[in-house]
């Protein structure tokens, strides 16, 4: 696999790949130094990972740091003293929580959690063992519950690996090691299902995939360092994959070739009856691919069909093969023609109002993959081949669509983008923009941000690139801190029209700089909501609240990024005075009170006003 973003120098990326291939700690450290020497702006956002653990991992921390830095992010890792789990996690004043981590990982295993049971289950009576197991289940639950009160950073609980040695008697023991691991793991998984801020690091799953090579008994006995030197690279990459959704935005679009990717054969040559997409080999592989793609769609990934074919052939094949998992209607955009694929994909990106770096492309033809990568380097091209199993593997091992949870907005997204094309069709049929907006029956709901909505707010801050004046990627903890000051104004906006509800699509955060001045920290709209006048609604609501609270000055800034050119003049349009300006940043001021107009084509419900 390739490690490190494509924009990094080739030699640094090669150094990282070689380090992970060799597994040698010295090469890992050299690569880490090379990464840390890169300019900070190419290295992603800062991320603090706290680790509490029952075994030695500090000797291998550089490997963890390298895997995380390559995401990219600028990781800082703090490892708590051995076995100080509750001490660090339940007390808001502990060293670890005071350090304000962005996430905390708990690494543990049965050997330390229940040493008497792990060393020999027959040292204890059956009753004692049963009590010990249920006490440990309870400990997990108390930890999860207590932690949520002490800290807002996501907590990753690892699952416990199964015992490594063969012990047939233990398997048939009502309270043996195997029973203990299964029961405690089930308590751990339950915690994640119940608490939104708890996620799973599947240590047991990693051990199962890695096998005997995962552990080094010698080093475990010598220094309580169980993870083998030869396996720590793979462990670190799996940890990076698990943490990625907390650090970087999830890819939004999967652009797929059709022939020899979603079915075997070429529809234009082999005809519909010649296509392989049955339940038997080799059709079963393509069916698996379709099922995987459909599953991604159901989690909010948009599908785009990019195929060089006659459109009628493709339409009749989908119509005739109606027991395939995928339908044509599952695609948010269908580009079946003879145009170069990168041109089609660029048009799709413009139509859907999405950045090219949220696209992943799959094609069995090396030529198509290379042409795409050459022309649109921001697009992630999966390393597939003509072998359908390689395509399935590439899709399954792709990190970019990973998420810990699927949100309401994720579920609605696909349908929403299909509505987008209906809206575009309507837009073309009515004369002026305003007349068109009136036909939509827009309805905006203003909701002050509360504890309950922080997750969605952080998700939006993390994902929104285009309509975003400052592109600040605040963490949950940072948003919560802003909420704690009653003078700050945090407003979210959801939008609905006659085609459906888009959910929360707008956010405005303004913080009190002092008693006189209110400063806009963040102002963003999801790309699905641009061009409807939603920003006016947020703006007007902010002005009226600022005045009510007695602020005399509103200040704001525009911070230029590669993607947010469309809001370069937003504050000018809203009537603010530019006071200073350079190539990266413009500073604005506005004396309050200031009158602003709400677009009359939007009906507004203000939740804080309605109580």
């Amino acid at each position, binding site marked *: 696999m390739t490690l490190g973003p494509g924009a990094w120098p080739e030699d640094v990326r090669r150094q990282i790949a070689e380090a992970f291939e060799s*597994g*040698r700690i*010295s090469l890992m450290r050299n690569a880490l130094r090379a990464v840390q020497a890169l300019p900070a702006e190419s290295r992603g956002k800062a991320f603090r990972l706290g680790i509490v653990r029952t075994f030695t991992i500090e*000797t291998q921390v550089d490997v963890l740091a390298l895997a995380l830095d390559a995401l990219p992010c600028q990781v800082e890792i703090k490892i708590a003293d051995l076995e100080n789990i509750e001490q660090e996690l339940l007390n808001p004043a502990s060293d670890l929580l005071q350090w304000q981590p962005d996430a905390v990982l708990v690494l543990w295993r049965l050997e330390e959690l229940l040493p008497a049971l792990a060393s020999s289950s027959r040292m204890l009576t059956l009753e004692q063992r049963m009590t010990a197991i249920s006490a440990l289940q309870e400990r997990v639950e108390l930890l999860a519950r207590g932690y949520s009160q002490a800290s807002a950073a996501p907590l990753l609980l690892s699952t416990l690996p199964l015992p490594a040695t063969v012990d047939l008697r233990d398997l048939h023991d009502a309270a043996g090691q195997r029973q203990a691991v299964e029961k405690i793991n089930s308590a751990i998984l339950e915690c994640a299902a119940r608490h939104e801020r708890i996620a799973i690091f599947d240590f047991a799953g990693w051990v199962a995939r890695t096998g005997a090579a995962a552990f080094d008994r*010698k*080093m475990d006995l*010598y*220094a309580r360092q169980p993870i083998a*030197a030869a396996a720590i690279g793979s462990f670190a990459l799996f940890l990076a994959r698990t943490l990625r959704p907390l650090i970087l935005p999830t890819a939004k679009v999967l652009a797929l070739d059709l022939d020899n990717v979603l079915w075997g054969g070429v529809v234009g040559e082999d005809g519909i009856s010649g296509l392989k997409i049955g339940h038997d080999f080799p059709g079963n592989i393509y069916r698996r691919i379709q099922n995987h793609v459909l599953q991604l769609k159901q989690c909010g990934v948009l599908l785009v069909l990019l195929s060089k074919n006659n459109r009628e052939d493709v339409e009749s094949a989908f119509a005739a093969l109606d027991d395939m998992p995928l339908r044509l209607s599952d695609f948010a955009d269908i580009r079946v023609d003879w145009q170069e694929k990168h041109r089609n994909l660029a048009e799709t990106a413009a139509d859907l109002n999405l950045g090219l770096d949220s696209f992943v492309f799959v094609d069995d033809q090396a030529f198509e993959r290379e042409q795409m990568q050459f022309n649109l380097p921001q697009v992630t091209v999966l390393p597939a081949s003509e072998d359908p199993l390689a395509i399935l593997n590439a899709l399954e091992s792709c990190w970019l669509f990973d998420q810990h949870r699927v949100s309401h907005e994720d579920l609605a997204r696909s349908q929403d983008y299909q509505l987008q094309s209906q809206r575009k069709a309507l837009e073309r049929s009515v004369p002026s923009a305003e007349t068109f907006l009136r036909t939509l029956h827009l309805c905006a709901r203003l909701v002050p941000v509360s504890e309950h909505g922080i997750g969605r707010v952080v998700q939006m801050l993390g994902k929104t690139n285009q309509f975003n004046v400052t592109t600040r990627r605040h963490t949950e903890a940072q948003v919560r801190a802003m909420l704690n000051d009653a003078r700050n104004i945090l407003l979210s906006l959801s939008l609905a029209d006659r085609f459906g509800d888009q959910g929360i699509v707008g956010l405005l955060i303004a913080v009190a700089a002092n008693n006189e001045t209110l400063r806009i920290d963040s102002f963003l709209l999801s790309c699905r909501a641009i061009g409807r006048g939603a920003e006016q609604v947020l703006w007007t609501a902010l002005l009226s609240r600022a005045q009510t609270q007695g602020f005399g000055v509103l200040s704001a800034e525009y911070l230029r990024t590669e993607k947010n050119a469309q809001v370069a003049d937003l504050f000018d349009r809203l009537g603010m005075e530019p006071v200073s300006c350079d190539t990266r940043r413009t500073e604005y001021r506005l004396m309050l009170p200031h009158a602003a107009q709400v677009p009359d084509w939007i009906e507004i419900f203000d939740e804080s006003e309605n109580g």
Partner: protein
Amino acid sequence: MKVKMDNREKLFTAVAGIFNVDPASISEKSSPDTVPGWDSLAMVNLVAELEQVFDVQFDILEIADFHNVEIIRTILADKGVSFE
């Protein structure tokens, strides 16, 4: 002649790399007393590095004897790594 230089150099470089010191400061006499950062935890990485560099496996009692570079060299030589 070349082989001798290579393996000795490899050994010194590995030790220096793990404890993050200048390879020129490492000698046969280097030990936890003379090299900053050579503690029992860092030893874990030294063992892994040497096993990978020389493609050998130490057994657990040998690790307990790693008191200085000279002893490590002797143990490696016993495993067929040539320092002659």
